[in-house]
């Protein structure tokens, strides 16, 4: 297996008026092709910052970061990843299909090719029939599915997801987690998924990266032993609970109670 993301001694420091903030400190991580990696940790642990650094939305301070063997900037310019934000961030003046067409227009796909991809990705996220709707006519869960379709449309092998279901209620969230797993298996993408829900992380991932704050660092990397086929009730099995316990343990160890 080839590695998609390789971080070596990656550090990122924000200069603020209160002095430097060490958002990431010496992160070493390797993400292989086809993995589903969750990043979990309390707020301020740098999980979102790490994802944004991979996406070249933040600049690293020291260390190296390679995506598909390129620097983060080159990878972004090569459109190597699709990014799903905390909110759907669909443009309200565009219909759902036009929103999915947005990256395709920017990347210069032809009209027939765009139509083909819109149809395929809408089908992938079960939104066929909503193509002509505007975002505000859809529920929050459907909007987030449309934003996933948008990130899938241009066939980047890497999907970066920053708490995509954080604002949704638990029932919708369970459903979307199930859908996401199916989608991941069908498309064989590499997915980096930021969350602060332990069950979500354990349910989805092949690898769970536990992070802790001040300075933001990786405290544990847990490879999941769960089978590929994961019905929702797998969450009651002892195996699942054991992994969840280890994640919780890692979170507790990384958390300092002195403050």
């Amino acid at each position, binding site marked *: 297996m080839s590695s998609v993301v390789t971080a070596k001694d990656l550090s990122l420091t924000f200069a603020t008026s209160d002095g430097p903030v060490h958002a990431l400190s010496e992160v070493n991580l390797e993400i292989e092709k086809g993995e589903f990696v969750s990043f979990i940790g309390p707020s301020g642990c740098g999980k979102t910052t790490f994802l944004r650094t991979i*996406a070249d939305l933040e600049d690293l301070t020291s260390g190296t970061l390679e995506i598909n063997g390129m620097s983060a900037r080159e990878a*972004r310019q090569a*459109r190597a990843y699709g*990014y799903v934000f905390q909110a759907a*961030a669909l443009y309200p003046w565009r219909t759902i299909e036009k929103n999915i067409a947005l990256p395709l227009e920017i*990347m210069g796909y032809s009209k027939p090719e765009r139509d083909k991809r819109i149809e395929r990705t809408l089908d992938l996220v079960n939104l066929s029939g909503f193509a002509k709707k505007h975002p*505000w006519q859809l529920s929050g869960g459907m909007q987030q599915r449309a934003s996933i379709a948008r990130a899938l449309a241009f066939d980047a092998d890497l999907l970066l997801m920053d708490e995509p279901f954080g604002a949704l209620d638990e029932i919708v969230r369970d459903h979307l987690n199930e859908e996401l797993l199916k989608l991941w298996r069908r498309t064989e993408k590499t997915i980096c998924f930021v969350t602060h829900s332990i069950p979500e992380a354990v349910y989805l991932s092949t690898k769970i990266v536990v992070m802790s704050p001040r300075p933001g660092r990786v405290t544990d990397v847990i490879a999941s032993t769960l089978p590929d086929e994961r019905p929702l009730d797998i969450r009651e099995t002892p195996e699942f609970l054991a992994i969840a316990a280890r994640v919780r343990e890692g979170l507790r160890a990384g958390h300092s109670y002195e403050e």
Partner: protein
Amino acid sequence: MSRLQTILALFAGFACIVAIALPYGQIADGQAMSWHYWPLLLVLLASIAALAVWFRGMPFAVAGGLAVLGGVVLMLLLPRIDLALTGYWAALVAMWTLAWLFAERLSLAIAGGEVAERPYGVLIPLMFGAAILTAWEAITLGANIPKILLPAPSAIWEVLLANIPVLAADFQQTFIKAVLIGYGLGCGVGFGVAIAIDRSPFLKAGLLPLGNFVSALPLVGIAPIMVMWFGFDWPSKAAVVVVMTFFPMLVNTIAGLNGSGEMERDLMRTYAAGYWHTLFKLRLPAAAPFIFNALKINSTLALIGAIVAEFFGTPIVGMGFRISSEIGKLNVEMVWAEIAMAAVAGSVFYWVVVLIERAVTFWHPSVRGGRA
């Protein structure tokens, strides 16, 4: 039936009784007229009867019909008297109150879903406009208000009809040439400069204070200077309009260009989108509500600017010229006719901009009436 409607009904009934009891007008020899005009008596009696029958919840059609009928009778009565007396004013108040009751009943009926919003909703502003004009006509003629102070609507209308070629020439000169061209140039340049300023921090430091400075110049100061620069004809007026409309457009467009969300812009970065893609596919559409705000503000500013600018040197045509020269001749009906034309032109202009805004920014919560 709400308390307000009860009060309105009682008040209307009381006014009707006063109108019947007291003389309504005076003729040449000083004789007071009481019950000589049977249509008025009939309308008043019918109103009292209707108010008694439908004291709780008069149908809006009855209230509206009586108000319109009463208004017509009061207008027909005007030429028959020299001076209106208390009975006439009481009848006018009664009809006004009935018109108000009509509006209350109709809006209640629309809210309750008894009648459709379209076309019945239009009746309320129509009735309001008719009531204003009727009262205006009745007061100016009935109380013999000097026409210098306020001419009657009918007199203004007559002058307006008699002077259509003059008014058309004025409209052409001031609105079609000065306002529209100045508006287009001012908004266009403001928009272009905003884009340039947004692109370059150097321009931002230089041009924004300059724009601010220009907008702070008083209209009466720049108008004569523009006449010096661009001559007496419409180009100098258009130049004033450009100066007036430039800054609102500049400021609003800059605000709009910065109005797109952080996440939406990050999204464009993840696509490695260039400046122009980001501008056309995200920032300009997101700025549209701001830009239309400026277009709306400017639509009224432009007309004011062009008319006032004509007070400072102009050829012998134009709305501002006509107002200033006719008021000198104490020909106030003509002044009012110009004002009426300016009001209608300005409203239609504004309304057209609003229609375009609704078509373009249909997605904005303020237009589609939904949540964000």
